[in-house]
């Protein structure tokens, strides 16, 4: 294109709002104003979800937000308003998630549940969802109490943990991570709403995973469970959080090379080519070893430590959608010509029944 015309001087670009790789602003990932208590850990998690979606460049319309009932289950209203959301019934989000994902396998799914919604009323559905390795992110916003009904113990409360009223919990805590690992979830992590960097990295990695990514996020309830004697308070977490590694997530569209000393870091390549880099803080912890993960979790309970990080990851296992051998197109939009067999099929069946 030989030309001598000198193009007019392009004006200096006005620094506009920051956009992500698909041209959306952080604003495009916001939801309506939260109605939860000021300082609630859940609000912080919603913020991290917004950050993770923005940084990953996820098209909001491609995401389904699913939840059960409880404070945590309200939060899908507070992020990504352009995503499709289904706030269902108590403890039954897994069934809604399973159905909606099967109905349209081209969608991403993110479920938000709480410790009551998952570990008590929803335990039956939770374990079966983990077992199926349904491709979705499943977040438990875990505060050890029922907030919406004013502070009763949940099943993740630790033995000896104390309610505001002075009632002591006598029953052992259900470790949702240990369960999820044992049952077949392929990405299991625990984090803390107050650990911004770790939570964000884990959320991004979870969004890149094609299997059940279960994140148990300790999220203190400032109104009912943030006092002395609680094992789910900000203070307790600050004192007892034991990260097993530094979590770094490098999305496939970012070409960053970081040198690391061999043996100090485990690098996992995700389904979309993204990299999950786990720099060991705890020697010998191998996040691909199921047995070790569960064993270390049990040990942590004994020591009153709260292990955080990606406790287990397996990018090889088949997920539920793959097992079902379905057509790649969403079932929801298959045309009648595909879903209604021709007259000849009916004739054949009728002949067999004669």
């Amino acid at each position, binding site marked *: 294109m030989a030309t001598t015309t000198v193009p007019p001087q392009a004006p200096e670009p006005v620094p506009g709002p920051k956009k992500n790789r698909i041209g959306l602003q952080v604003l*495009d990932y916001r939801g309506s104003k939260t109605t939860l208590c000021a300082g609630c850990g859940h609000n912080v998690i919603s913020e991290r979800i917004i950050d993770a979606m923005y940084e990953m460049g996820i098209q*909001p*319309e*491609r995401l*389904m937000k*699913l939840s059960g009932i409880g404070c945590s289950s309200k939060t*899908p*209203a507070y992020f990504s*308003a*352009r*995503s*499709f*959301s*289904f*706030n*269902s*019934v108590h403890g*039954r989000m*897994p*069934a*809604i*998630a*399973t*159905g*909606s*994902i*099967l*109905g*349209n396998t*081209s*969608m991403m799914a993110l479920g938000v549940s709480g410790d009551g919604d998952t570990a008590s009323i929803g335990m*039956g*559905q939770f374990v*079966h969802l983990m077992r199926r390795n349904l491709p979705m992110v499943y977040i438990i916003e875990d505060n050890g109490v029922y907030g919406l009904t004013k502070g009763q113990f949940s099943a993740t409360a630790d033995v000896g943990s104390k309610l505001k009223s002075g009632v002591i919990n006598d029953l052992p805590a259900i470790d949702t991570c240990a369960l999820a690992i044992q049952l077949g979830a392929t990405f299991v992590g625990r984090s803390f709403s107050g650990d911004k960097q770790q939570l964000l990295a884990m959320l991004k990695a979870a969004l890149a995973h094609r299997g059940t990514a279960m994140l148990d996020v300790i999220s203190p309830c400032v109104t009912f469970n943030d006092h002395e004697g609680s094992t789910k308070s900000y203070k307790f977490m600050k004192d007892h959080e034991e990260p097993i590694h530094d979590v770094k997530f490098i999305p496939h569209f970012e070409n960053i090379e970081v040198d690391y000393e061999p043996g100090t870091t485990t690098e996992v390549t995700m389904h979309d080519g993204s990299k999950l880099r786990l720099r060991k803080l705890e020697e010998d912890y191998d996040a691909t070893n199921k047995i070790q993960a569960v064993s270390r979790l049990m040990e942590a309970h004994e020591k009153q430590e709260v292990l955080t990080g990606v406790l287990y990851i397996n990018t090889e296992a088949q997920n539920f959608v793959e097992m*079902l*051998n*379905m*057509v*790649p197109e*969403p*079932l*929801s*939009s*298959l045309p*009648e010509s*595909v*879903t*209604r*067999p021709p*007259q000849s*099929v*009916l004739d054949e*069946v*009728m002949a067999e*029944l*004669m």
Partner: protein
Amino acid sequence: MATTEVAVSPHLAADRSPIVNDLSLQVGTVNGSGSQSSNSVLLRTIFQMGVPVSGKNLFPSNIAGLPTWYTIRASKHGYVARKREVDFLVAMNAETAKEDVMTLEPGRAAIYDEPLKLNELRDDVTFYPVPFDKLTATVCPEAKLRKLVKNMVYVGVVANLLHLDMAEVEKAIRSQFAKKKKAADMNWSAAQAGYDYAVANLTKQDPYKIEPMDENQGKIIVDGNGAAALGAMFAGVTVVTWYPITPSSSLVEQLIDYMNQYRMTPEGKATFAIVQAEDELAAVGMVLGAGWAGARSMTSTSGPGISLMGEFAGLGYYAEVPGVIWNVQRTGPSTGLPTRTQQADLLSTAFLSHGDTKHIMLLPGSVKECYEFAGEAFDAAEQFQTPVFVLSDLDLGMNNWMSDKFEYPTKPLNRGKVLHKAELEQLAEWGRYADVDGDGIPYRTLPGTDSPRAAYFTRGSGHNAKAQYTERSDDYENNMARLSRKFETARNFVPQPMITGEGNKVGILAFGSSNFAVLESRDQLRTEAALEADYIRVRAYPFHKRVAEFINAHEHVYVVEQNRDAQMLSLLKLDLDVALLPKLRSYAYSDGMPLDARSITDFIKNQEGK
């Protein structure tokens, strides 16, 4: 082998005129003994001979070792309902044989296993002793198979005594064991051994016989669950979830077979997903999740499962999510009689859940309607964006029925009011729960619709026309009023009632599997009491206005149903003008056995003073 010493009962007189193509044959066996195959062969043989026939399996909630009965009714008039009296008994089960024989009407006949010595019980029944074990041993050298083959011996004996065509018997056996040549051969030998024994040792003394007719051209034999499965496949179902429960399991099991055969792409990929859920709560939740995502989804269950689905049913109603739920009813309450039939979930299904919830229910009255309503249910669910229940029952679902061949659907699938990107972007305003058309039915979008305006928040909590959270009284009331309007719109959409006869004083109202007994009862009333009764068969709830019109046009209407508490009558009372209520009379039949014509006829004759 008549001897002169014994006076022959007048019931067994040799000069009785033959009774052709009108009998009920009952086989009493032990469950798990393979008698199902033998009974199917008998049923198919009579069917192939062109004689209208139906079969009913009365089985225990058990896998092996308990008594089971199979009743085959052949009727030249085409009556296929249960007949209370047994005409021809095959007593194979020592445990029940005596009682079975004692309940026979005088003049009937019984084949029995010789060592049971049933002939000593009474002298007004024709007895045919057969040494089944000896005969079986001759055709089946392998002792462990004898238990299964033994039952095919009685097929041969029955064939001889009832004049069944042995060529048709062989055809039926070969079709029954189509994929197992060795089993087919052995069973055919067993049937022949029975036949030959009868020829050589038994003298026909009863009047019952089967003669070829030509009534079954173009007919099929199928159970209601299989018919429903076919209907769902041709209605384009894509997501199926289930939790096993008698009597509904065979619906999804047959659907799995059909889908694996006919709904795979040439590349070998499934155009569907079928999930065995962890329980009925999950099954219905998955249905709603899939329905919300835009898939045609269904589950199948029975009463206990329906109870478990209650909470989700309310969510589906209030959040307006489509889904199809089959309720193949069995006898409740609680575990009840899991292998007996009833129509006793009508009220619990109609209002399943808490709050002001009411559901569309379809009430198929034949296997053909099981097939057709499977499609109607999906259309209604998507048109009205709500869970739709189809109420079949064990009798309809699990028993074999003759039917006209099913017809290929002519209507395209009705996917309801769904806004896609282009339509959405032309609208100035869109509210997920706004009643734009005045019919109570809003417009929905499906997850993934590629427009920033497409998403909405689905919730079971209070919401306004724009799907926003609200606790305002006026928003709540308006929304509930719209849901009520939507239900009213459904009255004219769901299958209309079928009406037979007009201008008579007496009417009969029935639904579902009661249909066959009512049809026969109307003939009995006509011939025995010169009573003409018009008949309305209700096929859906909400009731079409013709239901009220029919009741209004009659002096009184017998509401015939299979439950204790007259649930259909109760549902009618809620719906009808009070002035019509005195016209209703109840015949509520409830013993877990399929309804028979005689029970209805006797009741109505008595009420009418005839």
